[in-house]
């Protein structure tokens, strides 16, 4: 009863050719998004989450380059498509919401202009029809007085409003897949909750799939169906949200969860992950997490751990995963 995949990435490799050297931002990432699900892509900054999203749309900025892998969307490899074909897919099939709502809208155009532009780009409609659709979209993202607000310019709107509009614009052509790159990072906590709730509802209403990129474990817990944990350009662990929170097997996932402050915690010091994310020009050998890992053994420095299915639907890339699985949390350092 394996659900159908809408997007399947195999061995995606995106490098940045900088003066300092080749930055291996995404190094052999494989993941899949199933129809109608929300996949949370979690990791620290610099773990390659955003670059993965940009690679899917093939808009990796220079000097970045996708050098290997396959991105199968609805059975077709996006990496084999021409630039023109990709322009037809961007915004229509796969939409993207960027981090900062404050700057994702063009300051010199009214909201109406920006929404109708996208609608007219991908759908064969007249200006009036596009405008009507834009107003409907405003209703969809729950903005009051859409007929008036639509003539506003971005500088007249609040951050939460702008992010709603960015979402409306992304949804304007009813994409099958939505890539949301930290859509709530720059918003107040209350607005954050509203936006997440809105996205959850819209996803259900429109029946699309979504990749939610975030570093916030709290956000994915509420929204994602499955979670994909990334570290230094590689996937560490993939499982359902429940499994990730109840039974994290990769030491990095555990560390991430332990670093989240908790009200129930007795004023302990927050656990932090020692060290910083490695330099991706010359990443550590073997498992990339081993220099910061509490459970590392000698072998970790030499063997690249493959992503193995430890229990059904739970994949871990750690050579000691079996041990962790059998002994629970009792494994000694």
């Amino acid at each position: 009863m394996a659900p159908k995949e809408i997007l399947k990435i195999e061995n995606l490799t995106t490098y940045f050719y900088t003066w300092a050297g080749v930055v291996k931002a995404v190094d052999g990432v494989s993941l899949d998004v199933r129809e109608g699900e929300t996949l949370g892509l979690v990791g620290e900054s610099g773990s390659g989450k955003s670059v993965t999203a940009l690679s899917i749309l093939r808009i990796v900025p220079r000097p970045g380059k996708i050098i290997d892998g396959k991105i199968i969307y609805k059975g077709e490899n996006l990496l084999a498509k021409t630039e023109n074909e990709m322009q037809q897919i961007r915004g229509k099939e796969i939409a993207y919401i960027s981090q900062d709502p404050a700057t994702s809208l063009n300051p010199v155009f009214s909201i109406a202009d920006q929404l109708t532009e996208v609608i007219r780009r991908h759908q064969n409609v007249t200006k009036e029809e596009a405008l009507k659709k834009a107003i409907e979209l405003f209703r969809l993202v729950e903005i009051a007085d859409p007929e008036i607000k639509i003539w506003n310019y971005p500088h007249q709107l609040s951050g939460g409003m702008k992010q709603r509009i960015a979402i409306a614009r992304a949804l304007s052509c009813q994409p099958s897949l939505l890539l949301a790159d930290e859509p709530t990072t720059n918003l107040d906590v209350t607005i954050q909750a509203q936006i997440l709730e809105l996205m959850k509802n819209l996803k259900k209403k429109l029946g699309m799939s979504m990749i939610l990129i975030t570093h916030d474990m709290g956000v994915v817990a509420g929204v994602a169906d499955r979670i994909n944990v990334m570290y230094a350009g590689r996937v560490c662990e993939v499982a359902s949200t429940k499994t990730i929170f109840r039974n994290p097997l990769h030491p990095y996932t555990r560390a991430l969860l332990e670093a989240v402050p908790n009200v129930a915690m007795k004023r302990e010091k927050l656990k932090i992950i020692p060290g910083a994310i490695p330099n991706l020009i010359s990443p550590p050998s073997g498992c990339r997490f081993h220099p910061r890992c509490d459970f590392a053994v000698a072998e970790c420095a030499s063997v690249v751990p493959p992503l193995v299915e430890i229990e059904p639907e739970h994949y871990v890339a750690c050579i000691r995963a079996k041990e962790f699985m059998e002994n629970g949390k009792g494994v000694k350092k």
Partner: protein
Amino acid sequence: MADVMKEKLLETPEKRRTDGVSQWSIAWRRFKKNKAALAGLIIVGVIIFIAIFSPIIARYPLNYLASFNEEGKIRVPPSSKYWFGTDYIGRDVFSQIVYGAGNVLYVGFGAAAIAMSLAIVIGITSGYLDGLVDNILMRITEIFLVIPFLLILLVFLRVAMTIAPSGVGGLTTVTLIIGLFSWAPNARIIRGEVLRVKQNEYIEAAVALGASKWRIMFRHVLPNVLHVIIVLTTLQIATAILVEAGVSFLGFGDPNSVTWGQQLQGASEAVKEAWWEGIFPGMFITLLVLGFNLLGNGLRDALDPRLRE
């Protein structure tokens, strides 16, 4: 086009005006508060007015040897008959200044139009499409930046005047050459601005929503660098006017067109004896250039996003 739709949806135009405040209307509000900028606008406006209505404003026909015909004298000092005196062949200086206004503005606007079109296309393409295109375009720009502008201008003007002697679009040749040789600094400034603008997420968003390169360059990037372009254009007009005056003064202009620079050249032989012959055209050049500079500075202050409240 958008206005038509707006009116269809919102019955009252008043309502719409208060709801959507574009950056341009904010800029105009700021511009209005700036007295120096308004003065610049008025100076430029008055001179444009003079140029348009020159046959009515001028007191004698074009190139009419007023004092020479009537009194048999040249270089008559200012009087109620000849407000600014007469020149070395007896023409009324005031009337010649009035007739010259149109030519001066023609050179200014024409040269600026050519220079700015080149600068916009080269600046935006090179700034947005980095890599090889940028490299080639910027090296070409640098060549234009390092050649001594005035010298090459004089050489070209002399050559052009020899090939197409007097009459055959003499002033147009001057305009063309000034325009073709003064785009380079502007192209670099626009490119720099494009480099800044293209970092913005709304450009990334436009790419992610399926817009093509050309569409992004001229529909998303261009409007965001327009404030710089407007300022550069006004300053470019002022520069072109000065350059034309300069080359005309040196005797490389079009001798058959009346321009203020040409008048200065005629005056240069007798600066001590007939001060009026040079002072008045010189004052008008200064005034017009000052006007455009004030206008440019005012526009920059009004349009600069960093100064926005």
